[in-house]
């Protein structure tokens, strides 16, 4: 904020605490020369616009005609909505396939992370078995292993399993992540034990207790796992790049990178493909924004 301390005002006004977001509104003394809005907007608005412009340009260019894109300087606003790019992309033999492949891999990953993560997380949170502590620590430690250390041998493992160049090679490693197990374990630990104990003592099996009592209470944690799993599998490029050879098996992300080379002149088609690639995560993010931001900030990140 510009320094207003020279203006008349109560002393306490200058000492207004920073970092406040909650709490009661502060009765501000009137000042004489005040902007009708906070001066911070002069900094924030252009910056936010700068962050938004590439994505806006992505949307705009995907509905431009190629003539508009290819002339120099390119048109900054489409003359109308030209769907040629989208028509080209969706009529392309491969593109819908890539989309389906991405969707299959992500959907399997989400479902399986929820299921296996729930089972594993519950066992670690509530059940006693030999070696559970060591196992948990070991699983957590694997989160620190960088991808490039495992990528070559994982490829070899997949080849041994006969999965290279199939969607299986993408599905198997993403079936369950230590993150899902750990996050759900933490959440289950926070639930009151008594709820389950009553049912358990009445003779319910662990599995029934888990799916009839614990799971319905765990919607926030489960949706966090679902959203983050979807985001990472949908967006992954490096592993599909290594594991797949034939373009019929490509995912959307991988297809997009080859698409550019093939249709170098047809930028509207490339941008239309890009919009279709970005849209699902964008929608998922906007739909689950609250959960998403909370999950990012709360999943063990805050020390």
């Amino acid at each position, binding site marked *: 904020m510009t320094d207003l301390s020279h203006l008349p005002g109560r002393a306490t006004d200058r*000492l207004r605490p920073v970092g406040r977001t909650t709490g009661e509104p502060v009765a501000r003394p009137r000042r004489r020369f005040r902007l009708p809005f906070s001066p911070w907007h002069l900094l*924030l608005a252009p910056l936010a616009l700068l962050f938004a412009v590439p994505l806006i340009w992505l949307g705009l260019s995907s509905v431009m005609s190629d003539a508009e894109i290819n002339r120099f*300087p390119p048109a*900054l606003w489409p003359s109308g909505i030209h769907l040629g790019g989208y028509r080209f992309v969706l009529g392309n033999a491969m593109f819908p396939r890539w989309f389906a492949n991405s969707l299959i891999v992500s959907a399997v990953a989400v479902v399986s992370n929820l299921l296996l993560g729930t089972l594993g997380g519950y066992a670690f949170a509530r059940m006693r*078995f030999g070696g559970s502590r060591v196992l948990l620590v070991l699983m957590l430690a694997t989160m620190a292993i960088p991808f*490039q250390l*495992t990528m070559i041998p994982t490829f070899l493992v997949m080849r041994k399993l006969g999965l290279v160049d199939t969607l299986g090679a993408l599905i198997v490693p993403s079936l369950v992540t230590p993150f899902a197990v750990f996050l759900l374990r933490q959440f289950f630990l926070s639930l009151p034990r008594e709820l389950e104990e009553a049912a358990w003592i009445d003779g319910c099996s662990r599995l029934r207790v888990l799916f009839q009592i614990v799971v319905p209470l765990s919607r926030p944690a489960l949706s966090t796992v679902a959203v983050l799993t979807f985001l990472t599998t949908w967006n992954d490029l490096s592993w599909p790049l290594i594991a797949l050879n034939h373009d019929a098996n490509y995912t959307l992300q991988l297809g997009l990178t080859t698409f550019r080379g093939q249709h170098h002149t047809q930028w509207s088609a490339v941008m239309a493909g890009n919009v279709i690639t970005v849209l699902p995560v964008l929608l998922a993010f906007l739909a689950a924004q609250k959960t998403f931001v909370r999950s990012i900030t709360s999943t063990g990140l805050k020390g």
Partner: protein
Amino acid sequence: MSRLPTPITRPAPRTPAGSARRRGRREAATAWAFVLPSVLVILGLSVVPVLWSLLLSFQYSDLLTPSVWVGWDNYRQLADDPQFAQAVRNTLVYTALYVPLSIGLGLALALVLNRRIRFSGLYRTLLFVPFVVSAAAQGVLFSFILDPEFGAANALLHRLGLSPQGFLSDPAQALLVLVAISLWSGTGFCVVIYLAALQDVPRELIEAATLDGAERRHVLRHVTLPTIAPVSVFLLLWQTISALQVFDLVYVTTKGGPLGSTTVIVYFVWEQAFRNFTAGYGAAAAYVLGVALLVVAAGLRLVRRRDDRRLKGATS
């Protein structure tokens, strides 16, 4: 529940100790059934590959024919490889620029957005959205915007009367442009994390400091920043690790070029293993990076522990 008549064949009541033990054993069996799929996938696809990778790094392997044990040769060769040296240099430059800039910018924006300000939710969303866009999509989008001939960026420069730039096709600029793209997508993450941390700064501390006559910058320096220090350490660690591992964006935009100016370590590893079919050599390079990451993490752990102790000392 209505009571059923006791059947005549009812088994003799078990001793409590025996039944508890049996129940414990059954419980353990169920627990193992629950965790086994996760354990197989997670440990099977991390511990095995990590050890395998270590073995590979001492071998000559093209991923097809049986590999040959070569001892430290791969590592020795790496030490003399100018391309690897360049990859290390590029990775370090990228990290040294990206990490402090993203954290600094993130902190500044979070401090501003943490004030009672209108539209702060909208601003936060706009800053964060690029973070969910995949590196592939980012790469394709920015190759388009920054295309030296047809791109919108040069068109804009042209309108402003500035000379056109080469951007990703200019060896002197490419790495910097990649840093800029990463800042576009990665700053929002820091903002969100810092915003969450700022919510946790105890109001009483700030109010006490203000009552004691501290000015705003003093509060920031002596109350806010120390309280969010653990988050800063976390971000430092997180951003450094992701910067040292950058790959997707490079693959999509420049493929390591022009003239190797954007070849980073992971790209080098990938190229060796899957393009040149010298997997052992690639594995050795990966191990060099892995050890570097370990050192970073361990170093920050130490710093963090020391800070924790200091903080504890200050409050007790």
